[in-house]
């Protein structure tokens, strides 16, 4: 008999946990949807969903909230990946706010994000009447997320009440909701940023090239390198400059800071992270706007 090993490496453990969660959602909810943000966490989620339902297809649609300020390569990537996996892609936009010309420069990042992202999302969730919404958030990402359940209950307005969460024991999830209420599901809760990249390496998962260092035109503002997008407005005295940068997390280009880096491959990124002492959301302008801002937004329904 061949020598057999019964100890599962950490990445495989995390994978098994996430697959279990995805299958529970598919089995217990009527209208689940997977939030697809095009980022690395979403890319990992998609692979996990493929694995969970193999040899069958992914049994729910994916939803992308398009703020119209995404990097154009992200949109192209999204369409290509969804087509190749054969999943149904639904795109949500807050058309009213976009028609009103909402942008971060005139309205401020908090209001812009509230309108295009949070309202865009809530509108789409309401329209789709989804009872389970799967997201890629991880607990170690941000302080207020450390208390998040794997199944996070939302009331009929999509709001989160951190003081009144359902206890979650073992891996017995309570997905029961009344009409209009929903559960946000986070299969990657126990993953760290490094786990995500190691998994991407192990599984050869394709990610948006923005994660890799490249010479890009950026502007230095408030201690961050912001990419120059087609509509970026420069302030008096500012000018664009070429720098070797990459993005650690991908949002809208006006609000996503880049970090100086020379990591051009996934192994480079892993090596860089092992060195790094900055948590990734440091490059999201939005979190710094006010003390406790992420928690505030989560209460209101942000992911």
């Amino acid at each position, binding site marked *: 008999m061949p020598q057999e090993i019964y100890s599962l490496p950490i990445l495989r453990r995390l994978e098994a946990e996430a697959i279990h969660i995805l299958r529970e959602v598919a089995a217990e909810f009527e209208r689940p949807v997977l939030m697809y943000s095009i980022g690395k966490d979403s890319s990992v989620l998609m692979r996990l969903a493929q694995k969970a339902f193999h*040899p069958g297809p992914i049994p729910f649609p994916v939803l992308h909230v398009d703020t119209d300020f995404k990097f154009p390569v992200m949109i192209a990537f999204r369409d290509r990946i969804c087509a190749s996996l054969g999943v149904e892609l639904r795109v949500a936009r807050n058309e009213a706010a976009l028609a009103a010309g909402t942008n971060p420069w005139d309205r401020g990042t908090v209001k812009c994000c509230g309108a295009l992202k949070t309202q865009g999302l809530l509108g789409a969730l309401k329209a789709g009447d989804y009872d389970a919404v799967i997201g890629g958030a991880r607990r170690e990402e941000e302080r*207020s997320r*450390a208390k998040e359940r794997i199944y996070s209950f939302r009331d009929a307005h999509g709001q989160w009440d951190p003081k009144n969460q359902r*206890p979650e*024991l073992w891996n*017995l999830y309570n997905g029961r909701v009344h009409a209009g209420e929903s559960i946000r599901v986070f299969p990657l809760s*126990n993953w760290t940023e490094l786990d995500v990249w190691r998994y991407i390496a192990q599984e050869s998962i394709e990610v948006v090239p923005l994660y890799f260092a490249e010479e890009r035109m950026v502007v230095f503002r408030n201690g961050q390198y912001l990419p120059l997008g087609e509509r970026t407005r420069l302030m008096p005295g500012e000018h664009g400059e070429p720098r070797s940068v990459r993005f650690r997390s991908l949002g809208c280009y006006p609000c996503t800071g880049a970090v100086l880096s020379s990591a051009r491959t996934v192994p480079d990124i892993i090596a860089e992270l092992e060195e790094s002492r*900055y948590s990734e959301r440091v490059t999201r302008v939005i979190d710094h706007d006010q003390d*406790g801002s992420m*928690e505030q937004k989560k209460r209101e329904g942000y992911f």
Partner: protein
Amino acid sequence: MSRGRDAAPESLAREPDLLRFTTAGSVDDGKSTLIGRLLHDAGAIHEDQLESLRASAAKGTGALDLALVTDGLRAEREQGITIDVAYRYFSTPRRRFIIADTPGHVQYTRNMATGASTADLAVILIDAQLGIQTQSKRHAFIVSLLAVPRIVVAVNKMDLVGYEQSVYDQIRDEYGAFAARLGFADVTFIPISALAGDNVVTQSANMTWFTGLPLMTHLESVYVAGDANLIDFRFPVQRVVRPNRDFRGYAGQVVSGVVRPGDQIVVLPAGRRARISRIVTYDGDVEYAYAPQAVTLCLDENVDVSRGDVIAHTNNVPNVERSIEAMLVWMADLPLEEGRIYLVKHATRAVRATCSQIVYRVNPDTLHRESASLLGLNEIGRVRFTLFQPLAVDEYRKNRATGSFIVIDEASNATAGAGMIIERKSAPEIGPGVGAPVSRNVTPHSGSVLRTDRARLLRQRPFTVWLTGLPGSGKSTLAQALERRLIDTGHPCYVLDGDNLRHGLNRDLGFTPESRRENVRRVAETARLMNDAGLIVVTALISPYEEDRAMARQIIGEEDFFETYLAANVQACELRDPKGHYAKARRGEISDFTGVNAPYQTPETPALVIDTGTDSLDSSVEQLFAAVSARASSG
């Protein structure tokens, strides 16, 4: 077929493993400070988080408050207490750690139970100045209830007692004796100062009298790999995977044990047997799968398997139970009540269940048992549930995955309780209204005469016509009429009428949901025996609950259960009121009367529906007879 890549020997090469632990302590014992210190000294606090800590420090005393690292939420920061479970992640070159940080406040026993449910180890803090508090005992008790295999008792704030060994020794002796009563296998005591860092990551120069390991070193080296249950194979089915005609598999997680193609398995609770033919994963078939891998199993035979079933080896099975006894932590504002119906979620199945008895409540401070008829928020007790459908369970101490369940309040959907199944020590009493459980040590014998032999002799296909409908919908009348027609056409048959049976077989039963369930169970078992004997059976029972009918379906067998819904509405039935019962119920003289003050759940997928409210009796009998006689003569 390839070996799974996880099995490749190179994965042995110093792969760090994972330790999940939880922390417990009374408010101000220094738990947050300790966790902050562990994270800080392990380099797990990111620079930007440190910056915001420094900013907070500048607003306050000026010193870096490590407790703030884990006090995530605004509400808590304002109140200055931790109010909910938070998860923290850090790693050292030797191990990955997940901390479930749970509050010490008296109201939040439930959070401790939550944190302990997934922990390999618990760190219990005791303030050296205050000594052992009732809270400290409560914490150890909850940790032992959830069967966390080992604890570390960190005697904190040693700096405030002059690093005095006698203080530590006294706490160790007293608490050690208490912990021994709770049956922990592994208890380690460490004197620390979370604030100053003594014995947290590095050996303390202030307590040279202590010869043990610092906390971090202990956490890094304590052996946990042996905890995994690799003996008892259990596989709760999550989903049936059926993408096309050629593939049928069962997706789930191996929650314990190891499985291989060729293994003889049984699907519970039904008891159908087959062999594993393939173990399918996205990365290819594998030669074996073990806990906690998520895979898809294929069987060599097309047996009936659905979500919620548990697959196990034929020679090592969980107990199939219709009633369970458990230690329960209650977590809802609304107390647990005897006689109330709840939803019990166990592995991948949720069943309705009646809380049949609160055996006792435990005083967590003295460990004394008290009698109780309610279990309030944060109370712990031993309870019994009568299940509307059987579950395949293990004792929690032997198997966390198949020995645990949560209780859901159906009205609010709240997760109201957490249960740990215990083996009953004495034979359960069988009283009126309590479902008789399956005895574990009785094996059914099968003789050489087969059911098909008897059916051939009687020249018919035996099955059960299960009539369900409101009182007055015509069940008894139709049953008698159908029996007449069947006998006249040469079909041996028998009517089981609910009202009649209540004079004999079921005379000990009332009309509570529990009694109704037991009534249904007995009639279903009787019907099954009669079907076995070759008879066609017609039952006339209100059988108002979908779950009860599902149970009957299960007992009698899908193939032989011919559910017929007599769809007369309440108005029509009340108008007829052949026995005058509706009138009495309306006057309040009968309680629990279906249609008036007890619910009737309409069947979801009946084999036949007859509208006895509008159709004439003759027409109804005709429809019923046509369907039944066709079936009786088939195959």
